Each structure stands twice: as C-alpha cells, then as structure tokens.
C-alpha cells in the first residue's frame, strides 16, 4: 500500500477513514446512517472483512454493496445473514449485551460525550424539533463502547447541550457507574479535524491526534468548549490508496444507484 499526499483527500474522507480504522475484525457494530455507515463499510471492505454490521431495522451481519439511504433499505436485508423483528433486535441483541461498538452521530455533543438529537432550545417550545433518539438512548448504555463521529463546529460541539438524548459520561468522572451503567460509554470521538479520547479520570474528551495538515488552533476555533490537547499529540496517518479508493468506489456506487432510481422515476 502506498500513501497518498496530504492534500489529495478531503477532511470528511479523513474522518470516515480514521473512524473505519477504529473498528476491528471481530467487532459487532450497531451502525447509524450517514458517516458511521460509510466508516463501518469501509472497514468491512478493507481491514475487517468479517466485522458484523447490525442495523436497527433488524438486519444482522449485513454486507451492502451500496450505502443505504435509510436504516431499512432492501439492500441491508438482501445481504444479511438473518433479519429479525425490531423488538428482538433491541431485546436480545442490544440489551442482551451482544454489541461491542455503538456508532453514533449527533446534532450536539458536549465534552463528556453526551449527545442531543432531540431539540434545539426548550423541549416544550423548541427552536428546532430534531428527529429524536430512535435507538440511541439504549445504544449509548448497552453497547460495550460508543464511537461518535461528526464534523467540527461551534454549533455542534457545545459547552452545554440543550437536551440529553443519549447519556455519555454525564458530568464526567464516575457518573456512569453512579447510575448503575456498566458499559464504557463514549471512548472515541472522531471529527473531520482530529481524534479525541476521554481522559481516564475526568472523562473529558482530549485531542490525541490531529489529522494531517490540521493545527491545534483550527481544532480550538471550531470547538465550543475550551479544547484540551494531549501532551503527546499524534498525527493521524493519511488515507492509504486502498482506503481512499474503497471509500470513493463505495460512494460512487451509492450515487449511481440512487441516480438510477431517480432516472427510472423520470422515465416512468
């Protein structure tokens, strides 16, 4: 594998590829739509061919050729080893402790990995009503670890989120333990600029690696809380040729599939 030059990829591609690298071949991963879905499938198509991908619609061990537009596209069922009912998915598989990684996105996240996907503003009189929690409130507490992926901005990485849809580390420290939650919670935050990991004691997310070409100032400017940096700051290895080609091919197949659907509609 040869490495590409630092300017041959976008921040978004770096984010997806960095997230894909965090997944292991023996992981059982509960996958969200969007960037998590792309990262999980790049992992499956590169270094983790046997990874088990599970979508909340009930598909277990799915291997889609194109990325699904929704959580329940036919492609997910067609390529799964089995498809179960939604109650079974949440009772046996998630609550039963069979998921190693829950992969979540967020409208807002705070420094302790608490996630809001419910409302901007007050719950009763919201400025913006967002879709809500879906599977996330229980994924956040039942999956053994949580990975979060999102683009950095002061609107999304905030000092205090408007609503706790999914519990991360709460106020930090041993807050999860105090609530009787035994899983590890958010252990990784991957953005388009950096890799963040929780401080072992306070559980505050700390920048541990910058993506190639990114400065600490850029990270601090696009984060709504005073960003902390690890003493030893790594540089994320740039995408390899294989990783980049795999991601781009996947996205091209996905676009072609969705464009074909739109074209069929126009012809009809």
């Amino acid at each position, binding site marked *: 594998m040869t490495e590409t030059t630092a300017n041959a990829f976008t921040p978004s591609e770096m984010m997806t590829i960095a997230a894909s690298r965090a997944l292991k071949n023996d992981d059982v991963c509960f996958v969200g739509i969007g960037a998590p879905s792309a990262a999980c499938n790049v992992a499956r198509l590169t270094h983790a061919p046997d990874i088990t991908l599970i979508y909340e619609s009930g598909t277990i061990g799915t291997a889609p050729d194109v990325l*699904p537009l929704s959580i329940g596209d036919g492609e997910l069922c067609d390529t799964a080893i089995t498809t179960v009912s*939604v109650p079974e998915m949440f009772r046996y598989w998630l609550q039963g402790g069979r998921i190693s990684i829950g992969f979540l996105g967020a409208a807002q996240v705070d420094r302790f990995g608490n996630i809001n996907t419910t409302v901007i503003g007050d719950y009763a009189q919201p400025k913006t009503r967002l879709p809500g929690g*879906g599977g996330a409130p229980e994924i956040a507490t039942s999956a053994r670890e949580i990975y979060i992926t999102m683009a950095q901005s002061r609107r999304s990485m905030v000092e205090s989120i408007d609503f706790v849809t999914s519990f991360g580390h709460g106020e930090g420290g041993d*807050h999860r333990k105090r609530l009787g939650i035994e899983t590890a919670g958010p252990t990784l935050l991957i953005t388009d600029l950096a890799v963040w990991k929780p401080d072992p004691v306070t559980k505050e997310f700390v920048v541990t690696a910058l993506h190639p070409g990114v400065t600490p100032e850029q990270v601090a400017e696009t984060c709504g809380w005073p960003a902390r940096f690890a003493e030893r700051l790594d540089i994320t290895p740039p995408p390899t040729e294989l990783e980049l080609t795999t991601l781009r091919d996947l996205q091209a197949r996905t676009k072609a599939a969705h464009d074909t659907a739109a074209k*069929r509609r126009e012809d009809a």
Partner: protein
Amino acid sequence: MATFMPLSQAVSENLRAGDAAAFEGFTHLIPTAAAHEAIRQGVRDLTLIRMTPDLIYDQMIGMGLARKMIFSYAGNPGVGLLRRIRDAVENGWPGPLELEEHSHSAMANAYDAGAAGLPFAVLRGYRGAELARVTPTIKTVTCPFTGEELAAVPALRPDVAFIHAQKADRKGNVLIEGIVGVQKQAVLASKRSVVTVEEVVDDFKDLHPNMCVLPSWTVTAIAVVPGGAHPSYTHGYYVRDNAAYVEWDAIAADRERFRAWMQKNVMERTPDEFAARVAHLRKAA
C-alpha cells in the same frame, strides 16, 4: 376472521374519530395507501402511534388528522427532518400536536407487552437520558429478585393497526417477509387491524414453515392494494423510491405547496393508482 373488502370500506369500518391508531412499518412495508385513505375520509382527533413516523404521519398531521403522536424517531430517513411535523410542534400549524416521546427500544417493548396482554413493558433503558424527565409515561420499577432499577412504559394497545404485507391466501392468512419490523406485534396488540396486501394467492403450502405469518383470525380486514407501500417498498415486489423521499423534503417545506400536492396526489386519487406508481420500480426488485 379476516374479511376481504375494498380499502375505503376497511378504513371507514375500522378507523373512527378519536381513535389511537398505529400505521406501522419500519422503513419497509409502510401502509401509505391506507394512510391516504384515512386522509381522504377526513378522520379527526387521532392519537397516531408509530416508531418511525415518516412521510405518512407528516402528511396526516399536516392535514390536521391528529391531536397527539406517540413516537420514537420523527425523521425522513436519510434525508432530514419531517417539516410538517416540525411546523406542528414549533408553530402549532395546522393545530397543536401533543407529543409522547420514547426511544425505539421502549416502543418495541411496549408493542410486545401489548401483544402479550401485559400492562407494561420493562427494559434496561433511559439511563441518564432526559426523555424520562419530559415523558410522564416513563417510570421505573425495581426488580423483585435483584433490586435492579429498570425502566417501565405502559403497553401499547391501539384501537386499530394498519400494516402492509406481501400477500394473503384465500383464507385471509397474511405473510410478511424481509424487514418485518414491529408489525406483527402492532397487529396483535390492537383491538382491530387492517392489512393491505400486494396480492392474494391460493395458499401458502410451498413456503418455508418459519415465515412470519399472521393467521386469518388475528386480522380484521384485508384490502388488496398492489403498490400500497409506495414510496416505501415491498421486499420481492418493488424497490424503495428513494427519489420520492428526497423530493418530499421540498414539498413539505412550504405549507401551500404541501396542500397543493396533497390535493392533487391524495384527495383526488384512489387506492387503485398505487400499482402504476410502482410499475417502474418493479423491474429493479
């Protein structure tokens, strides 16, 4: 015992003003034709129950059919927000909408409890999450054996459930395959149920014995509506019309455009027209 009848009759006989109604389907097999018939019949004051409200609840709420929604995720999958539901919640248009909001896990468990004849569902859920603060029907119970504190939500017992399925046999047994969602639980939890199907076959005798089947005596009415899930999809029959979901975002963004679209595509139409809407999607299935 399930009775075969036209969709208009199935809706008028089983959906009444003030009902708690579930139009279920988890991305797959969404009962769009049944929802459109309910809109045409102008049923009011409904409590709409569904895990993933999707386009049909955006349409029903935008047309003023509902006073309350019980749900766990109100988004246009892969596209964004549901703009008619947002307008109801944020601005009270066309009327106020009361929300009872849960997580997927709680809704799935609540249907399961309803189907099982239990008064409530228990789950290891909502820990640290704020929904428990704003939704009064989320409580806690203590396990009598271990002392563990667990979440409890009331069983869902809709007056009526609407679902779409692949096929019925001549006796009225119903077959669902692919992503089966929560439809079996919703039908068994409800007092009455209406199933739209793609087709009727003589019998299910050559099918695998472990298929998901609702026996005829668990279903109230069956209406044959080919294409009745469009723009959602029916596994084995036609694919999801992703472009229609993307288009909906712009249609629903504007109140007048929304009303004009509903007039042209729902109010002035009949269930028979669904077959034509999926004709071009069948080739890809």
